[in-house]
């Protein structure tokens, strides 16, 4: 009798417990017991198609997550679509993902103009627009846009950090600035000027270039002629390499600050010439897998193994693939925290309560922190200097 009672009791207990367990499970469209639907918009075609690899690498990472059992037992159903970096197409695709595919959230839409185009729509629909792939400052607006969140350190924060470093180490510097004539360049420049504050007159020359320009050689010559002894270089990889090479070749040797966007050894310094890059100052928040300093780092090794198995056609010199891996891990963490309460509201709540979350991909001492009033996950960076072979970290972690 006793033997029979035990299983019956167990069954009863399970029957009594299960409604409670069921009650804990809460779902919005896109989430079920079996899967979580995540939408993604990337430029697989068009002028920014070089970034298309991010969407593919994220897909590869979620495949790995699924192979290992998914998140809390649910598989990720990752739906990635192409917008060709064209804002009207982004609107159409966001509507397709939200209204037709009924995804739980949008993850990593790429670029400032495409994200601007859907900013209002996503917030009106109350669907998370999470960890957008742009460094513009406006994504950190929990009051006005509580459904949108950035990820990387924003450009203004970084610009301010360079300004502070200059004020501290070279208070009489004569500064020359080269920037890309768009929101990205101007955001950096604004942060930089805010950081200089009353001393903004230290900037003796400001020159811009268009992303369609073939080279920035003439701009560099102009900046040299201004007599500046400090150079803040706000350029994307192709132009950064040109600027480093040209200023070296014409014998201009300022203290050279290079924005993080182009701080890749493989993609920028190697083509520019490693010997010509000695002394460059920049910032980092993620490890650079092309930097020899990290060759045996566990995170980089894990990433290399992941790339080999799940995304073998991906370029291992392209920092975008490392970035994709890191940001996908952040998404995974948020969904893990959300547990069985997979409502859009709870997803945002979990994204806004990352406390001292450490990504293995980020530099030592740099953590992700968010709160209901702080929608900027990365807010600190590490100053780095190039010694001819690799970036060397110096000073303490700066920022918040």
């Amino acid at each position: 009798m006793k033997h029979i009672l035990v299983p019956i009791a167990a069954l009863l207990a399970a029957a009594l417990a299960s409604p409670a367990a069921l009650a804990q499970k809460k779902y919005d469209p896109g989430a079920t017991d079996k899967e979580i639907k995540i939408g993604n918009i990337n430029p697989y075609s068009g002028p920014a198609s070089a970034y298309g690899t991010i969407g593919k690498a994220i897909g590869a990472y979620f495949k790995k997550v699924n192979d290992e059992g998914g998140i809390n037992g649910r598989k990720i159903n990752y739906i990635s679509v192409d917008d060709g970096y064209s804002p009207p197409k982004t609107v159409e695709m966001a509507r397709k993902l939200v209204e037709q595919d009924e995804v739980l959230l949008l993850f990593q839409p790429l670029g400032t103009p495409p994200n601007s185009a859907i900013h209002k729509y996503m917030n009106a629909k109350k669907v998370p627009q999470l960890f957008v792939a742009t460094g513009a400052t406006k994504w950190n607006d929990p009051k006005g846009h509580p459904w949108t969140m950035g990820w990387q350190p924003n450009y203004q924060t970084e610009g301010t950090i360079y300004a502070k470093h200059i004020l501290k180490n070279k208070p009489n510097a004569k500064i020359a600035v080269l920037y890309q004539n768009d929101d990205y360049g101007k955001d950096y420049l604004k942060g930089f000027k805010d950081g200089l504050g009353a001393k903004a007159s230290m900037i003796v020359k400001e020159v811009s270039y268009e992303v369609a320009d073939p080279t920035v050689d003439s701009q560099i010559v102009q900046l040299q002629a201004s007599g500046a002894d400090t150079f803040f270089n706000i350029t994307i990889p192709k132009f950064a390499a040109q600027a480093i090479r040209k200023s070296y070749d014409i014998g201009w040797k300022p203290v050279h600050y290079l924005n993080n966007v182009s701080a890749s050894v493989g993609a920028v310094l190697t083509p520019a010439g490693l010997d010509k890059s000695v002394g460059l100052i920049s910032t980092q928040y993620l490890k650079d897998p092309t930097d020899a300093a990290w060759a045996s780092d566990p995170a980089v090794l894990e990433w290399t193994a992941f790339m080999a198995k799940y995304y073998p056609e991906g370029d291992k010199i392209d920092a975008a693939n490392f970035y994709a891996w890191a940001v996908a891990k952040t998404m995974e963490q948020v969904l893990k925290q959300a547990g069985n309460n997979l409502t859009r509201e709870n997803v945002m709540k979990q994204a806004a309560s990352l406390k001292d979350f450490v990504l293995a991909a980020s530099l030592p001492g740099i953590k992700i922190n968010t709160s209901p009033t702080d929608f900027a996950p990365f807010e600190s960076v590490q100053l780095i200097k190039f010694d001819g072979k690799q970036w060397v970290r110096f000073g303490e972690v700066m920022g918040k």
Partner: protein
Amino acid sequence: MNRRALIVIAVLLAAACVLPFLVSNYRTFQFTLVLVYAIALLGLNILTGYNGQISLGHGAFYAIGAYTAAILMDKFGVPYWATVPVAGAVCLLVGFLFGLPALRLEGLYLALATFALGVSMPQLLKYHHLEKWTGGVQGIVIAKPDPPFGLPLNPDQWLYYFTLAVMLVMFFLAWNLLRGRIGRAMMAIRDQHIAAEAMGVNTAMVKSLTFGVSALYTGVAGALGAIAVQFVAPDSFNIFLSIVFLVGIVIGGLASIPGAIFGAIFIQFVPNIADELSKAAPWAIFGVFLIGFVYLLPYGVAGAIRMLLARLARKGQNNRSPAG
């Protein structure tokens, strides 16, 4: 227009009217874009199909229309419906003025001049002295209009009907224009401009006006497109848009009014199908579609339908003749 054509139009119109109640809001939005593109393509078709002038820069007029609407709504609080005629008028003027010198150029040279306009437009929109109007690279976000008079429609459905109404007016006006004296003058210039001139057609004037009217149509489409998408930015109007318009009219059918609708359906939906088929090379798939269409339907969709109807009519006659 015979009775059968009127019946076909009435049936299609009825279908267009019930459509928003049969499909999701997202699809309704896509069909709104089809209507918008149809107006733009009709504009380009008036120029290229009926007047024989090739433009590779109509995306620029689309952009001007879109920005006119967005700036009026955002900076001056003008209601959305009032921005559409203004956008058309601005584009008529710009198109006419651009047409005056450009039309001294023939064929490929005009194509290059318009290409220059199309390719420079995104950068002009970023020009920093215009930034306080255009919002620079950030563009302008505009609010979605609500249905008026308490109509039991959601905003997507309302916008669809609004766009449909504008489209019908624009198509009717074009039909009226093209079958009249001016339309005949346009086609005469296309087919044999020396003969047209000899018959007393003021070719320079007609060509400039055609350019202006064509720009007007595209500008109206741009304004409607901006209202539907609720956002304008320079990156929305790159040179590719102009090329896509040209693709649309050729696929739809040159010198055909309904062809504009077929072309619009093609440029709206085929890129999406291509993207679903392959992430790695969506444009290669698009290219295959394009070659397929050009090869199988050399006179566009409208031309193919026309030939099919003609063949059916002939068959009908043949069948009837023994009896009669």
